[in-house]
């Protein structure tokens, strides 16, 4: 059967996240971006909604079961409030979800409950590298087997909360394959840059450059144990999540510019009454709907284990990066001069929008 209606449980989650997005995230988004800091209370409150906890089985301290469909529904809704805030709230998922997807039983039991059963804590993951041709499937950071250990060397970028993180997953190339390694904060050779990255947006999300020099971790730290793991499900989950967040950001920009266009007058009419603006909005709404549906299908394929789930998630993500740029750019255009002023939120959404093409690995829900 086809069906495009969230189930009751999902709808309740959407409603709760939607209230959080509107009442908590959106009101602080502007100042958080300007000051480069989110109120910790907001992060705790977001964490307490239990979006991640609900996707973790009881055996590992959660109270539900992972569903990519549910995850993308929540991700879209939260990102509608604010992207930086959403990424902050969801940062521990960068650590937990890959372990859930690809870890051994022992790794799940050891690493997931301490994160899930506690208040929000900075656990994170390092995938992105500082190179124009960064490619998650062809990393420059290396892992080499040495005795019973693996030795990691390289540099990682945009690692959220790396400075305070208790532990992180570091992705490295092991014989040409991207593999994850669970790295504790205290390990020798791991250096986190003092100052956070200076990015075009997400100023409220502290993200760091991380250097690994001869970092030695035991074989048991390799995600999936001795046999390792397939990187595809992790990348697919990240792409589906980012696609959903791109839809959320685009929706925020669309709705804001639509409402503005219905208020603003020019030449004696509301500018929304001009076809130039009305058609812009119609196309924005259409593209948002197109990518949302594509993202839902990709997530559904991931949940049902469809053969082309990976490919579908990739396509949804690729489509989402273009859509988010197009929609947020037009939102700025509709507001005209005001769109360019930081007092209005659309220019931030435009900066967010361009980022999705670069964010692989920065969100996994």
């Amino acid at each position, binding site marked *: 059967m086809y*069906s*495009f*209606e969230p189930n009751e449980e999902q709808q309740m989650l959407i409603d709760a996240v939607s209230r959080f997005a509107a009442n908590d995230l959106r009101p602080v988004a502007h100042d958080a971006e300007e000051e480069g800091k989110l109120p910790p209370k907001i992060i705790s409150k977001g964490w307490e909604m239990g979006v991640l906890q609900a996707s973790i089985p009881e055996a590992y301290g959660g109270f539900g079961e992972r569903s990519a469909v549910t995850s993308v529904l929540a991700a879209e809704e939260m990102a509608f409030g604010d992207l930086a805030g959403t990424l902050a709230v969801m940062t521990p998922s960068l650590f937990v979800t890959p372990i859930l997807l690809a870890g051994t039983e022992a790794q799940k039991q050891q690493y997931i409950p301490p994160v899930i059963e506690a208040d929000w804590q900075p656990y994170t993951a390092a995938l992105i590298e500082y190179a124009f041709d960064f490619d998650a499937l062809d990393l420059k950071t290396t892992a080499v087997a040495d005795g019973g250990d693996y030795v990691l060397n390289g540099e990682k970028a945009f690692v959220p909360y790396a400075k305070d993180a208790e532990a992180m997953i570091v992705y490295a190339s092991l014989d040409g394959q991207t593999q994850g390694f669970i790295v504790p904060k205290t390990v020798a050779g791991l250096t986190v840059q003092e100052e956070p990255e200076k990015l075009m947006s997400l100023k409220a999300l502290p993200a760091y450059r991380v250097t690994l020099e001869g970092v030695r971790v035991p074989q048991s730290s390799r995600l999936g144990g001795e046999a390792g793991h397939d990187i595809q499900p992790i990348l697919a989950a990240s792409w589906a999540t980012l696609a959903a967040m791109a839809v959320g950001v685009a929706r925020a920009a669309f709705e804001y510019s639509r409402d503005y266009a219905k208020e603003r007058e020019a030449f004696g009419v509301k500018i929304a009454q001009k*076809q130039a603006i*009305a*058609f812009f909005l*119609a*196309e924005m709404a259409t593209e948002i709907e197109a990518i949302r549906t594509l993202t*839902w299908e990709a997530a559904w394929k991931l949940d049902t284990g469809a053969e082309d789930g990976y490919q579908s998630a990739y*396509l949804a993500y690729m489509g989402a990066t273009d859509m988010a740029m197009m929609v947020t750019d037009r939102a700025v255009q509709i507001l005209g001069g005001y769109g360019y002023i930081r007092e209005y939120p659309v220019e931030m959404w435009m900066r967010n929008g361009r980022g999705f093409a670069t964010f692989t690995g920065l969100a996994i829900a």
Partner: protein
Amino acid sequence: MTIEFETPKPIAQQQFVLKTVAENMMRSVSREMDENEHAVPYGYVEFMHAAMRATGAGSLAPKEEKPSPSPLPQGEGAGGEGKKRPPIGYQMLAHMLEMLSWGDVGMYLVTPGGGLGAAAVQAAASPEQKQKFLARFGGEKPTFAAMCMTEPGAGSDTSAIKTTAILDEKTNEWVINGEKIFVTAGHKSMVPDEQFGKGFIVVWASIDPSAGRAGMRGFVIEQGTPGVAVTKLEHKLGIRASDTAAISLVDVRVPFDHVLGSPTVEKQTEKGFKKAMATFDATRPLVAATGIGVARAALEFVKEKLAENGVQIRYGLPRNKLTSIERDVIDMEIMLRSGWLMVVKAVWMADNAKPNALESSMSKVKAGDVTTKITQKAVELMGPLGYSREFLLEKWFRDAKITDIYEGTGQINRLVVARQILGYGGSELR
């Protein structure tokens, strides 16, 4: 309810059969039909008629009573007594149209069963009228009907329609005068052919020109009615298997009960016309589906040729590592799949009686874009293979363009979408 994307079993079974039809009865004569404009694909017409008759469907138009209009065996799990399954009539139809158009969209338009003419009767007629006008489609011979809306001076702006229908109270007949153009299957509906049953047209005319749209009504005009003449067959860029007729109406007299809807003007409302427009909510995603079928044919051709030449698409790479061809193919896949899913959502809403005017028009906006862009890019990518008439790709490029024009141009559908999302009516957003 939950979010699901599993093709329902009866639809999957139908598609399996239709693919064979598309390959063996459509693709096989596609080129011939394109080169010989206005030739009639009798083989396909006979086959579809026989198939629809065998299942008692008669027509492709979904009926309220029978949610699954498939002319083909539905297999297990289609209806099933006891268990109530959600209706899937429109979903089934959208899939069917997509597959037939993947075969040949021009030939699909020559599917007997009444097309838009029957759809208008289905939407606006009384039960007696339905009985009178629609029974023929289940008869011995394949039969056609057509919708006459467009006029030389009235395209998207249907309020400019000049055709009139005046009641002659002495004879209780409507007297219709006007000129209609771009009538799909107008020739097959109105010009006798021994192989076909007697068809009709539904002509949109004003019963009171001072009343604007409120005066607009559909009138059924039977084949053979004096005063009706097919004056021209258009020569087109594509969909050449489908006849596009000009029809002149000079003092055409039809019985009183051939009017669809109320015979008097309700000055206050535009109800009658709105009803006609409501048919478009249902048919827009279906037209979108036909475009998607053409686009899929083109994209499959491209991927096949690339694979034959050892060009693989490396899914998963960042954009700046992809070749230009890979980027194009990936973009085409995104467009095709998202466009198709918008169609599926719109018809799923129709099946579940959810208001879908917005989704319906969005799916048409998207399909118009997707279909033209994919086929145009495909010809570019395939170079001489794309431009040569040896392959069908150049034909699909020509066929595709109509998707963005008929059943509401891309611009009209943008207007409809804009009004919906802005909460505007025609007076606020012209």
